[in-house]
């Protein structure tokens, strides 16, 4: 906390706001230059092509809308959500091994991650009831 910026900056000094101001100006200016630049330099086309999913300039040869089974989307989303759960497991696993075995603290940590996993189970149960995992 001692390293916090306040000490470096000195609160109440009006000059202290100048860099902030400049920083905002810089950020906005950079963004604006980019946008204005594309407006000036880039070609501008409007129309159907612009509204299609791929803006890479490729003209689709036929309608992009095939009747995908809705389960593909479901699987994609379920994957996304469950995948993110793992993000929390890594830091936990990395720290848990450093705790003193059999200690109360370790126990608390275990309970916490169990609760966390339990919520995942509930989500799984929900998905199961919803029929996400049925492939018929």
């Amino acid at each position, binding site marked *: 906390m001692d390293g916090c910026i306040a000490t470096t900056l000195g609160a*109440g*000094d*009006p000059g202290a*706001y100048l860099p*902030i*101001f400049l920083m*905002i100006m810089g950020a*906005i200016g950079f963004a604006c230059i980019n946008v204005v630049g594309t407006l000036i330099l880039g070609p501008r086309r409007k129309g159907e092509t612009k509204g299609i999913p791929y803006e890479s300039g490729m003209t689709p040869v036929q309608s992009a809308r095939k009747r995908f089974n809705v389960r593909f989307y479901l699987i994609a989303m379920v994957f996304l959500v469950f995948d993110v759960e793992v993000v929390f497991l890594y830091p936990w696993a990395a720290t848990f091994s450093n705790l003193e075995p059999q200690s109360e603290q370790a126990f608390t940590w275990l309970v916490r991650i169990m609760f966390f996993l339990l919520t995942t189970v509930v989500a799984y149960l929900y998905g199961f009831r919803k029929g996400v995992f049925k492939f018929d």
Partner: protein
Amino acid sequence: MLDLAPIAMTLAADSPAAVASAPAWVMLIPAMPMIGVVLCTLMSIMGVRSKLPAFVTVACLAVSFLLTVFMFTGHSEGWATAVGWEWLHYSWGDGNGQNFTANFAFAVDGLTILWMLFVTGLATLIALYASEYMATDVGQGYNRFFIAFNLFVFSMACLVMGSNLLMLYLGWEGVGLCSYLLIGYYYKKPEAVAAAKKAFIVNRIGDVGLALGVYLAFVHFGTIEYTELFASEKLQGYLHDAAEGHWSHIPWQASAIPLFLMVGAFGKSAQLPLYVWLPDAMEGPTPVSALIHAATMVTAGVYLIARTYPLFQVSEIALPIVAWVGTLTALLAATIGMAQFDIKRIMAYSTVSQLGYMFAGLGVMTSVGAGFHVLTHAFFKALLFLACGAVMHGFAGQLDLRKLSGLWKVPGWRIVTIGMFVGCLNLAGFPLTAGFFSKDMILAEAFVTPGFALIGWILLFTAGLTAYYTFRVFFRVFVGPVEYHAGDDHHGDDHAHDDSHGDDHDAGHGFHPHAPGWAINFVLATLAVCSIVAAGLYFIGDHGWVAGMIHDSTAHIDPHGDEAGGSHGSAALFGLDPHKAMYYISSVVGIVGIIFAYAFHLHGRKSAGEAPAADAFKAALGPIPRWAENKWYVDELYQFLFRGPLLVLSHIFRYVDMLLVDGLVNLMGWLPYAVGGRLRRGQDGVLQSYAASMAGGLALFLLVILLLVNQSA
């Protein structure tokens, strides 16, 4: 510890604010009608289509009345309070006037009990009457009526029993609302809606006065709890100054309070210049007219002044103003009443006139006289209204005294006629009736109070007029040759319309009035007996029962250094004790009035429509009777003074800008409208433009604030 205890006890005993606590069941008195509201609402939701709501109402109100009687018998002296719950409590400091407390609490003293007795008693009886009177409306209308009826009694109880001015204000607004709802009960009739609106608006003017008065009282005295307010050293000091005649010692804020309160009282009790709503309020169902617009609600103004009597005494001019306003109202309303033909309206003007008497009574410092008159008036005026209502009910809404005659001889109308007769005797101040005694108290006091003799003479003259117009109704409608025409108006379209009668109701024959049933007759008989018996109250105790009740309240005064309401040793009228003198004088005046009525309206009258003597006299007076019939053009005057200029103004604005149709109000409304219209263009429904505005907003905020902070830092 041991040494301190006796001191503490002495302090508590000496403190003027020490108040007895009333039993908790006292709170049931206002609660019962509230239960009635809930039950009737439930019945309304369930779609009950029977007389059940009426009987529930009667039961609730009867319980309330019985409890009031218990409260009366159990009451000893001074204040007794019962705190429902702590309601509002704001404090923004410890000093005087920085601590606002208003509990949902009830305070009981003699004045409260006096009022509650007749409010709950009459409400019970009139609810019973209404059960029959409103029978043609059974269903949603009937339920609605009784919901509002109960709500009214609840509000009135809050008004009268509340322990602080805020409770009074709450009840005040509540009765105003119920009055509005009930006047507009026949909401399909444009007159009823207009009358309701008029009552509402005129009352608002008064309410502003009351609100300001309450506010000022709080600001100045730092409390609005009665017990604290009237015991406060400040007020006692002012009263002392006032008694000594040091008016200049009293700050103007204190003497302004009664002036504001007075405006509220004038509005609610229909005094000049705010009386115009009451006659129109007769568009409501007759039980409502009897209960709200004759017996109870309109006396709230009298109650307010009686309750805050000490506040009125610290102003040099307040009570004289009250006296003069009351007197002039009494005279004006009586003259208008003389020229009307609608019997219910005559009664309405007589109510205004009698209320004027009460105010005059308060103004000449006889709170006992005013209180007694309130009580007797409540009974006989309710009786008169209910009798009129019975006529209206039986003759399909006929109220024109030129179209009814000789009801005494029509089968089934005896009790109504007797009731009417008793009521008329009381109103006319016939010797030995209750109305006679109560009016005499006011008159006598006016004559003996220095500087008010003129008021006494005017009121005496008005008493004669009262006797005349009262018996004018009686002689025209109830005696004389038998003749009747059915009303063409089935009041409010809601009454059952019996086709066999309806075909030729103007012909007089073929129409069969339906005589009142047991409920109406029972109520009329009870009220008639009550009106007669009320005279007896004058002989109870030293100076009448009412005097005892009033002495035990804030309205108690000692203006002449002897017992208020009693005889004044020094004062005399025509060499007699003023009260005795007044017995004779006012008897003569009343009887003369009745004789005039007889001569004009019964003697030699052959049909309902023509009274030769009266018509000849009327012709001799030129245009005056017509002016009186048109209520001295007061409505038109108000129209001219207030509404006319506003209309002109609005027309001017109309030319300035077509948007300003209705005058000043819309001028202020225009700017937001215009800006709103501009702003709406921003709400174009496109995601991007919203996002752009948000981003722009963020940038703008940051820039503005960073620049401002930079400058100020």
